[in-house]
């Protein structure tokens, strides 16, 4: 590890002494670097890039894993766009992304604002709020969630206090997706930590100046905090949306592996999984995967484009 880290430093020293030898040395060092990286490069090529290219090819074939893939052109895509379950999975996923991402970020930002103030035991609070993110993706939490949102469990009892008699959410196609949203929001730790770091970067003198000018807390937040952390906010929006598009584990476990009831938690990746690994329609599943890649790329592009409207980089201001 240390070798790789130190490698770029050495050529600089050598170059001053003998330029020719230095170049050779650098090449040698590059070679060494690549050699050390080779397990990871090999892993990337064999386990990531290779399968991706293969799946791009499969997307245009009918492939049931047993008989060789058969070229069908765009058939998978046309079937997919007409498939009511595919449409349903897109609808479910979009709903999830649009509801879960903003709520999660709002909570993360809110808690980060509270934790940014120095007070006794702040380390403890930060750790406590971050904790759910560490265990959030695990299967056991999915089971706990099933229990929490069942009939007569804590959520049901709480909502009854407010006169809501909808029963448990888990078996109800109209509500079950929101239990997944709740699970996602609960894992706000990662964006919160990033927000915290961003908040620490905001120069204190801006607040002091604003205070002198008589700006209240809301004004200070709106006119100083928000613009100053907008790059961090942008980063979080980007990352969390991409994550949300790929949600799988929680839907799979909370719905008892069925992504139901009545396809209510049939998120995109879950349908992809069913098509690929249950029904062995690998061509169709590959087409789905690449469509998701394109869709996420588009969303990312739109976010990047929107940056100039609302993201404030300090360099640009100078």
């Amino acid at each position: 590890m240390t070798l790789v880290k130190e490698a770029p430093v050495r050529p600089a020293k050598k170059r001053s002494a003998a330029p020719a030898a230095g170049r050779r040395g650098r090449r040698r060092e590059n070679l060494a670097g690549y050699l050390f990286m080779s397990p990871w490069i090999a892993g990337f090529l064999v386990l990531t890039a290779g399968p991706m290219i293969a799946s791009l090819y499969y997307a245009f074939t009918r492939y049931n894993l047993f008989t060789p893939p058969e070229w069908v052109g765009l058939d998978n895509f046309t079937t997919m766009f007409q498939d009511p379950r595919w449409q349903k999975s897109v609808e479910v996923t979009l709903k999830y992304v649009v509801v879960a991402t903003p709520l999660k970020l709002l909570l993360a930002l809110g808690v980060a604002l509270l934790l940014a103030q120095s007070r006794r035991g702040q380390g403890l609070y930060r750790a406590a709020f971050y904790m759910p993110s560490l265990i959030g993706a695990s299967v056991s939490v999915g089971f706990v969630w099933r229990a929490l949102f069942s009939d007569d469990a804590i959520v049901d009892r709480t909502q009854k206090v407010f006169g809501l008699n909808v029963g448990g959410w888990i078996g109800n196609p109209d509500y079950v997706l929101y239990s997944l949203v709740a699970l996602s929001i609960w894992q706000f730790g990662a964006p919160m930590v990033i927000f915290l770091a961003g908040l620490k970067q905001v120069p204190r003198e801006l607040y002091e100046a604003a205070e002198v000018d008589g700006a209240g807390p809301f004004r200070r937040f709106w006119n100083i905090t928000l613009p100053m952390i907008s790059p961090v906010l942008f980063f979080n929006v980007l990352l969390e949306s991409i994550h949300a598009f790929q949600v799988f584990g929680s839907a799979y476990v909370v719905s008892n592996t069925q992504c139901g009831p009545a396809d209510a938690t049939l998120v995109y990746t879950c349908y992809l999984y069913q098509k690929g690994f249950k029904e062995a329609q690998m061509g169709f599943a590959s087409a789905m995967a690449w469509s998701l890649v394109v869709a996420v790329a588009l969303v990312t592009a739109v976010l990047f484009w929107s940056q100039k409207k609302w993201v404030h980089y300090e360099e640009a201001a100078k």
Partner: protein
Amino acid sequence: MGTGGNVERRTILKAAGATAATLGLAATTGCGGDSGSSGDGTVTLRYAWWGGEPRTIAIKKTIALFEKKYPKIKIKPEFTDYQAFWEKFQTQASGGNPPDVFQNAVGFLRKYDKRGVLLDLKSQADSGNLSLDNFRNGVLANGQVDGKQLGIPVGANTMALVIDLKAFKKAGVEAKMGWTWDEYFAALQTIQDKLKIAGDTGYHGIMYLYDLYLRQNGKAFFTDSDLGFTEDDLTQWWTDAYKRVKSGLVADPKKIEQVQPKSGLSAGLAASEFTWDNFSIRYEGEGESDYGLAPIPTMDGKHTGQYLGSLMLSGFSGTKHPKEVAQFISFMVHDPEVGKIMGYDRGILATTEQYDAFTPTDPTNKGVKAYEEEVAKAGVLGKITPHPSGADVIEAAFLRIGGEVSQGKTKPADASKALFSEAKAAFAG
């Protein structure tokens, strides 16, 4: 870092070489598969099955017995639950690395025969490595496709109605052999009126029950290569079912969904449930009431449409040790000790040797035995043909779409259309 470039390079190259060698080695061990033979002639077979913990414990005991009798054959067990089993199997089989011997069912024979995965055990029987004698009630035919013997049945089971005995008694209703659907639903109505619980946990999504209903009407769910009923037939089935869910005669699917993986019957949400008779053991463990097996309702007062299904053992066509696979299967289906250990967990034991060796003592197994004897005596047992390739996908779709209907999310006619469209894709797959 103060050493010269040459030394450093040599060290680096060595290190890199070692890394590559290790990786290569890991790859070799990873791909080699685990079944094979070692120098001393010992053969290792991979054996995979699905099922609950009691089955796994029992099977492991039978493996120990086998290894004692055949010291040159070692068995490496692999087990999961039903769903995961077939996902894993499909992936392994497509990579040419399925287990040598595995549990199988009638719904998967054509599918994996078409894909060339199943070993035809007939030739092994001809060379004396496997006995095809002494199978009861002709169940051996369950493992045959187009003249090939692709599976050897370990047991025989049939669909049944499991009832909450206390609830039925309290409501004063009785399940009789040959009762009609009208009588059955009337009984459920009485239960609902008197006990304020649903009558049934949700029959609408069970493909094997709909199959019986169709058989009672001279049809069947599958022909050799297609569905054996019309869209209208299914629309009717689901229209009736949805009415019964609405009226509370059939349990609220939201509640059934929540208690999973527990059954709605053992959770006390309803008083009866259709399932395979050898599954009835689960209810005693899960629930607080007493449970018993009751006859399938009929159209004409006699014909239930039932047949004996089977779990079976199959071999992999590409196994390096077909002889040992055959010996293993033969031992597992014929040895009386194995029968004693397994009991009726995978259905009533398929061969006379095992059937005679095991005498049920607990009420559940006694109930299963009495039930199948009663059904056999009534002379209603029909024949089952191996399902077409894709049947497993259709079974899952039937359950899922039936669930959408009962949740009121899909109209029965649309649901029926959807099933037919998915079935078409599944048969083509």
